[in-house]
């Protein structure tokens, strides 16, 4: 097991004049190189929690450790130079070129010019932008997806061990978003950063996270587990509702056939369904309950029909 990179110990936030905590006391450990996604509805405190890690929001209490160091009381500006930060609106500085935006943190850190230039080119390359073509452009001349690539490159500039990402792909069209997610996963496999990523999109959370932290109303952490663990054993009805329908089918997306073992033969009761149910929902329920046949209820018991899973698959096949 790898070392702990981020440790939150009873961290909480309460705003003056507000009843109740914006974030209830929260403790969690995030391992080095781990990709953790915070997911939950709006107002559940996931963004506030993220922003407490780099002290963009000052915690009201509790302690934060990064890489074994208590950072609760260090100079926040100094702390932030060593934590990558990506936000939904990107926030590129409009009057600086792409290259200058990416090289900003190294410049703040006092790097030599040629080192900054080399690093900038390397990073633009890493996020799939040709440095020669894009380095001299201004943010306004880029598409939303390109801007966020630059945002990611900028966050990586000083090679921080930790990256905080607040809905980075939230404002991007679905097609580009899917591509960016995929590319980012591939990138993460190479750079192995410790990432905390906030989203309200369950699918995005399950797709990207090594582990997913589900936040509930009242800013409590309801479940913190791998995507497979969450889909297999949702902690409670809240998580089940939040996952929405189709959890059983979605879980299949996280399993490889090679991982499956031959199940013990067992007698399963047939699933009773009505003729108006969609094939999709019936398959989902069969998968959930492990049923291998269904009884489609008719007007009366004599009209009931039985179909096996095999028949259902063949009848529903597109061929």
């Amino acid at each position, binding site marked *: 097991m790898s070392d702990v990179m981020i440790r939150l110990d009873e961290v909480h936030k309460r705003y003056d004049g507000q009843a109740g905590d914006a974030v209830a006391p929260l403790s969690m450990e995030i391992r080095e190189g781990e990709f953790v996604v915070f997911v939950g509805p709006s107002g559940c405190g996931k963004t506030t929690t993220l922003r407490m890690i*780099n002290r*963009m929001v000052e915690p009201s209490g509790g302690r934060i450790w990064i890489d074994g160091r208590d950072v609760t009381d260090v100079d926040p*500006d*100094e*702390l*932030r*130079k*060593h934590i990558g*930060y990506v*936000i939904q*609106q*990107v*926030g*590129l*500085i*409009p*009057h*600086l*070129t792409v290259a200058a935006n990416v090289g*900003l*943190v190294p410049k*703040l850190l006092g790097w030599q010019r040629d080192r900054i230039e080399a690093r900038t080119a390397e990073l633009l390359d890493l996020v799939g932008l040709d440095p020669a073509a894009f380095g001299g452009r*201004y*943010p*306004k*001349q880029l598409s939303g997806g390109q801007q966020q690539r630059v*945002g990611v490159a*900028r966050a990586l500039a000083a090679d921080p061990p930790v990256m*905080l990402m607040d809905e980075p792909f939230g404002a991007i069209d679905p097609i580009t978003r899917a591509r960016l997610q995929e590319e980012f996963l591939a990138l993460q496999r190479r750079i192995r950063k410790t990432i905390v990523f906030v989203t309200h999109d369950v699918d995005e959370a399950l797709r990207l996270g090594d582990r997913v932290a589900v936040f509930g109303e009242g800013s409590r952490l309801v479940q913190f587990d791998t995507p497979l663990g969450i889909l297999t054993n949702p902690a409670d009805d809240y998580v089940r509702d939040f996952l929405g329908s189709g959890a059983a089918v979605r879980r299949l997306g996280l399993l490889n056939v090679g991982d499956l073992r031959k199940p013990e033969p067992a007698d399963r009761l047939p699933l009773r369904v009505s003729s108006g149910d969609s094939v999709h929902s019936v398959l989902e329920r069969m998968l959930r309950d492990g049923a291998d046949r269904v009884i489609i209820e008719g007007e009366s018991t004599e009209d009931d029909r039985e179909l096996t899973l095999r028949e259902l698959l063949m009848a529903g096949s597109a061929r």
Partner: protein
Amino acid sequence: MPFHEYVLRNAHRIMFLAAQHVQLVLLSVAVATAIGVGLALATERAPRLRSWLLSTTGVLLTMPSFALFGLLVPVLGLGLGPAVVALTVYAIFPILRNTVTGLETVTPAVVDAAKGMGMRSGQRLRMVRLPLAWPVILNGIRVSTIMLVAIAAIGAAVRGPGLGELIFRGLARIGGANALNEALSGVLGIVVVALLLDLSFVLIGRLTTPRGLHV
């Protein structure tokens, strides 16, 4: 004598007064810029003081300039002093207001990202917020400047320098030889000065607006 002949004969004096006029205006605008931008920055965490300042400097602007110049004479005497003080008072409001507006219109996400990268508050101001607010601030300075070119003429009432002298002297002896020409040359001189200054602001704006903002 026809007007153009009057101007040619008095070209030296008119040019001298025009130069004085420009200097008076630029000096006052410079002082007002320091005060206006300074007040806008100093009151960032004091919104009440800021709105009080905005309304107060706004009200000062409605004070008739002739009266203001007059009121300052007992305190500051005649000449350059009261002229600069009065003009500065008038110039503060547009600059203060535009600095406030300019800083407010900077996209919060840009400042948030800059902060998240570890830029200190002074660095954020110098490297991000002021450059982005600059076109709006500059426009405030421009409005003040053009306004002062006109108001500065009244400064001649307290023996302030500039083209106002031609107008006041001409009007004082109206009916006399070349009285109208004298007053008219003052008025036209002011129009020309205003146009030239406005033009130079367009140029300064072009040169100093960061490229990334108008691509």
